[in-house]
């Protein structure tokens, strides 16, 4: 069931908390303690806004075990506005057509359930974001 693994990742999955490197100011997600750019210690927590855009996307029809229930689902590479890119499912699409460059925002959704009596895994997903109209 991997309860401890998912528990460890709560802050990232539910709140999109990463790090900012105190040396080179690079925003880091997910947190990794050593800055991938300047390789110095980077443990300062940073709260991402949740806003980003779709770098690329595709629909999964042939899913791995544990995910077949929700086929087809859309996975994407999302570039957060602060810089880092992450992998996530897109959600709340309705009839909306996905496009490269589409603005999205983070929400917390159920990712999978490990069987009837298994634990529920929640994580970030991204839904279409409508830019505020000029007033």
């Amino acid at each position, binding site marked *: 069931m991997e309860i401890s693994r998912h528990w460890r990742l709560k802050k990232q999955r539910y709140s999109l908390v990463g790090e900012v490197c105190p040396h080179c100011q690079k925003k880091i997600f*997910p947190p990794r303690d050593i800055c991938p750019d300047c390789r110095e210690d980077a443990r300062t927590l940073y709260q991402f806004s949740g806003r980003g855009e779709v770098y690329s996307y595709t629909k*999964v029809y042939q899913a791995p*075990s544990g995910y077949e229930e929700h086929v087809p689902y859309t*996975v994407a590479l999302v570039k957060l506005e602060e810089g880092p890119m992450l992998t996530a499912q897109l959600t709340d699409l309705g009839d909306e057509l996905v496009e490269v460059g589409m603005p999205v925002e983070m929400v917390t959704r159920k990712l999978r359930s490990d069987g009837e009596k298994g634990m529920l895994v929640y994580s970030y997903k991204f839904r279409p974001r409508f830019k505020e109209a000029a007033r």
Partner: protein
Amino acid sequence: MTMIQDAKTPKDVHVIGVGMTPVGEHWEKSLRELALDAITALQADGVWVRPQALYVANMLAPYLSGQTQLAALLADFAGLRGIEAITIEAAGASGGAAARQAYLAITSGVIDVALIVGVEKVTERTRAELEAALSTSSDADHEAVHGITPTAQAALLMRRYLHEHNVPDDAFAGFSLNAHANAATNPQAIFRRAIQVENYLNAPMVSEPVNLFDAAPLADGAATLLMARSDALPEALPYPPVRVAASSIVSNTVALHDRSDPLLLDSVVESTAQALQQAGLNLGDIDLFELHDRYSIFAALSLEAAGFAARGEGWRLAHDGIIAKDGDIPICTFGGSKARGDTGGATGVYQLAEITLQLQGRAGENQVQDAKIGMAQCLAASGATAATHIFSREDGP
């Protein structure tokens, strides 16, 4: 063309034998039986010297067959009980990685003769279980958990590529056309029929925009190489030994989203450059390139990152037939992953065995004329590891 000096220095490493099973659904063969078939094929190839070490390339046995310690198991099963034996895992780059370890052991002088066996059985479980096993090569905490699969990742890359570059609808067709054409005369291939561009254009989508012909079939198979150092070569060799002119492994980010530019395969850039430098060669000296074509997008990106084509132009080499057997940069000369078939961690060993046959003039109808220098490269997942080898023919140009 650079004259490559194949002088036998004492530390040089040579391939003195190859063996392969056909790639297919080998329901009647277990993992160990499949591996033994390939070893038997190598022994029948003409040269057999008892190796001091066995390097096994495999990625899926722990998940699909419940088997770790594959090298010890195969050593025992093949009548080599007691020799030094370890399993090398680097996802899709396992084959090249195992060859690298054999090369290092032999050139160091510690091991004289090494056997490399790549083996994979993918047909043991359901498709969903296979996808889950394949997804372990991505970042478990930040990629796989979101339901991503290798096919989906190829689709993400291909879609972005189409977004950034203006390419025609049949841009990637040339890769599968070439692969199938070459596999038609390879008795070991899983698919042995040429296809037409209409087949490609009408193919159903697997994970848009990756269609059925953009994705290689994954099946069972085993391939072997026997490597020995210059001063440990057997007296009578039926074929000219092939020298390992270069051997390189480079790692990169596992997660595709951690790359600064996902369309630039940094590991390929670095590993290819290292290999060319080791061998003292230029790109133009390469007579054939067995590249990573698990998905057509990776073939295009590999050609670009290796330097054969500019960014956004890799597809053109396929489109214009430059990758054909008689073209300037032959690739997938026996069908590649697309038509000879992909065997996961064993693919890299098939590539090296095929290069060896080419350089020894034993490729039959698949022969690339005057093949003297061949490069083989296999990648893990979306490019987290690149293992590159350059082989050269013993008797030179």
